[in-house]
């Protein structure tokens, strides 16, 4: 492990995101398929992600005759994905829909945004929030995990996702899982 690791640890930005608000509102009257109110969460908790601080940016593998020509590690610290104007507009619309209690509409708008930027971790996080507010806890947790998988080194977002997961787990009575997620959130600070 290089000295860069320590440097990276020392320089970790201590950025906190705002707490997740969760005003539970009644969903819109539109049916959504596959939306059963009781979804078992305990079946398959997400695989615990082993946290490591690893700010090293390795160089591309220099392979000549070697078997693993495959691995070209992308840079560890990517900038936050910058949403295009198209997506920002949709995110604003979704926020508006959320505020007016139209959760189904907000979800549809977020999905439209995700079709444009499927790898934007923030959009997955926002969809997770909508599902959480709708009481779809299992789905909220999976969406937040998906967001985490794409969040790379965006620690604010990670923390936000873990807090969301904690909330979702607590809502279905899985307090041990919730505490685990909260630890993850704290580790992401």
């Amino acid at each position, binding site marked *: 492990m290089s000295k860069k690791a320590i440097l990276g640890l020392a320089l970790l930005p201590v950025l906190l995101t705002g707490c997740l608000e969760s005003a539970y509102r009644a969903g819109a009257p539109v049916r959504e398929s596959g939306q059963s109110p009781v979804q078992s969460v305990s079946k398959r908790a997400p695989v615990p992600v082993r946290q490591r601080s*690893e700010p090293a940016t390795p160089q591309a593998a220099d392979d000549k005759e070697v078997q*693993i*020509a495959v691995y070209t*590690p992308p840079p560890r610290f990517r900038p936050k994905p910058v949403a295009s104007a198209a997506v920002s507009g949709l995110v604003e619309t979704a926020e508006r829909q959320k505020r007016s209690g139209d959760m189904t*509409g907000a979800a549809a708008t977020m999905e439209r945004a995700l079709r444009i930027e499927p790898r934007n971790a923030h959009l997955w996080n926002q969809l997770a929030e909508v599902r959480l507010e709708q009481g779809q806890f299992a789905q909220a947790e*999976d969406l937040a995990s*998906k967001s985490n998988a794409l969040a790379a080194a965006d620690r604010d977002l990670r923390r936000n996702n873990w807090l969301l997961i904690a909330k979702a787990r607590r809502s279905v009575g899985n307090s041990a899982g919730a505490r685990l997620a909260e630890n993850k959130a704290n580790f992401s600070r």
Partner: protein
Amino acid sequence: MTRHSKSRHRQRKKTKRRSKKKSSWLRRWLVKIGLLSCLVIAAYSVYLDYVVQHEFAGKRWAVPARVYGRPLELYPGAAVTADQLLSELKRLGYTKVRYPKQVGGYSRNGDRFLVHTRPFVFWDGKAPGQLLDLQFSGTHLSSLRSASGNSLSLARLDAPAVGSIYPAHNEDRVLVKRSDLPEALVRALIAVEDRGFYQHFGVDAKAIARALWANLRARGVVQGGSTLTQQLVKNFFLTRERSLWRKANEALMAMLLERRYGKDEILEAYANEIYLGQDGKRAIHGFGLASYFYFKRPLHELDLPKLALLVALVRGPSYYDPRRHPERAKKRRDLVLDIMRDQGVISATVAKKAALASLEVAGTKGSSAGRYPAFMDLVRRQLHRDYRGEDLTSEGLRIFTTLDPWIQQQSEKALAEQLSRLEAGKKGLQSAAVIADSQSGEVLAVLGGRTAGFAGFNRALDAVRPIGSLVKPAVYLTALMQPDRFNLLSPLEDTPLSVRNRNGDTWTPKNYDNKSHGTVPLHQGLAYSYNQATVRLGMSVGLDSVATTLRDLGIQRPVKTYPSLLLGAVSLTPLEVTQIYQTLAAGGFRSPLRAIREVQTAEGEQLQRYPLTVKQAVPADSVYLVNQVLQKVVRNGTGRALASFVSPQMNLAGKTGTTDDLRDSWFAGFSGDKVAVVWVGRDDNKSAGLSGSTGALRVWGKIMQRIQPMALELWPPESIEAVWIDPASGLRAEEHCAGAIQVPFISGSVPNKQASCVSNTNGSIFDTLIEAIFE
């Protein structure tokens, strides 16, 4: 006492007096019979009146569900080319004009388009028509503005109608209201079919006389005297038989109908009921649908010559079919224009100008029905889980699907092209393919066979075939899910072996090249698809675990846990395989494949959504390792032939599959945004003579070449670390070591032992300390 009974009284007296007279007895009976028939006729009229009223008032046209493809999203930076926009505009029936003042028009100047979009009721609300100014540069849309020059961030075209779900009697229609009927259409219809429409009371004596006279003179039926009301009644209630009885019934019912309902209501019913054409088994009813069927655009966008053609068709949609008999149709249309002129509906100049227009009928191929039978099949199956067949065929639901007609079209072309190339010397080759969005599971295209648009056996959904080596990623994934036991460098023995089946048989798997390769690192076993190494690995992780992984990846049918499962003795449809690879492509997050996004009522109210869902099905880090190897398959493994189709810089991931005797040839893989599966084989299950890489791969590659997917960039999950390794020993090295390579590991599974090139004195105490913390 009434006069009537008085007379009867008198009669009775008379009868008494001359009781023996037969004539009076007869008269009495005649009167009785007369009375009775009056009663019967009255009762019959009451009955007919009931029928007419009941049917008409309660008439809710069976309006088939209308199915739409995805609307094309336009925003600066969108990966949409000018060609793609053009093909979409044509699909939507937009007219090329000099300047698109009207909705449904566009103009083009090189890479710049002006498009006047149609208003459209999307699931999330009504979008007004707007005039867009679009500029393309090469592979993408570079700028999007409104006509006034303001830049826009996002716009979408109306969703293309891709089909309808009509009932068993095959009647299809698009409902129109009286107010939607263009005045020119109404006036043409009345001029030609029933000039006394607004005066008569159901039947038109003058018209009948006129027709009789004309027919007598011509000694045959040349003119009908039926009013629009009678025609409607005939279509509505009666059979096609030609008899006086039916004619009488028709007249009676027409009069009853007129007594109950206004002219506008009757006209609206007529406009929706009238039969105007045939599209295979599908009967085209009403002007609303006929407009789409013949001109690919809504009724209100039609000009006079087009409206006149629709009216011309009333007399005989098949005799005057403008596609099969254009000259006949044009003659009839011009006659319609002449009649309109003669009756003063239009001026002579207008009539003359309209008669100059060509028919401009859209090609049948572009007709919106039945173009995508394989995809529609999937839509229908998914809908039938939630809706009664009756609702689908009669309620006029609007169904918004995920179909991307452009991708469908490109894939069809690619498949047809490559299959005829592959077939050289062979006969009876078939193929199927599914293309989906890798992150959301939205199905973009379904190809059920090699003939596009042919609604036969849907191989994409129904051909259940052994998947061969396509199963291997699941075997390796199962192993890599145990990071304490396996990593990409774990040594596997690719040496001959025999496995005992449950039934006692021994099974001796061989490699495709009939050679064994000795000790190979795990990643090579997958990249080069070594059978013996894979079976050893699979037996060591356990057949049940592999079956569980397959289930987690998304297959629902039961899997038999024979050792041969490890080499793909599990039969699945291309759609099911797509689900497996979707989960891999999405980094372990399974999204059930969906063909439908939303369902709206006929009135545009929201009814149901089929939301995007994800399920973390398998660990992201293990999937990441498998995907690394699947990229290697394409780069220099069994999938390397893809290089002749797609740039290696796309870093696509995929896997070939071949079954015994070259019966099935598979390729499954993904880009950054799409996952696709192709099967090539024969319906009779005989050898197709193609391996995965000589067959399906070529189709897959061609599809990708045509649809221009996004490059695949795998992002390592947090728990992945890349470590320098000395490839010779598989031990840990450092960057400066000669020939050292970087290998991804799941944290905690990194080899501890260091290769000789790493000198311990090199590292400071501090480094060692840090390492101790994290290992």
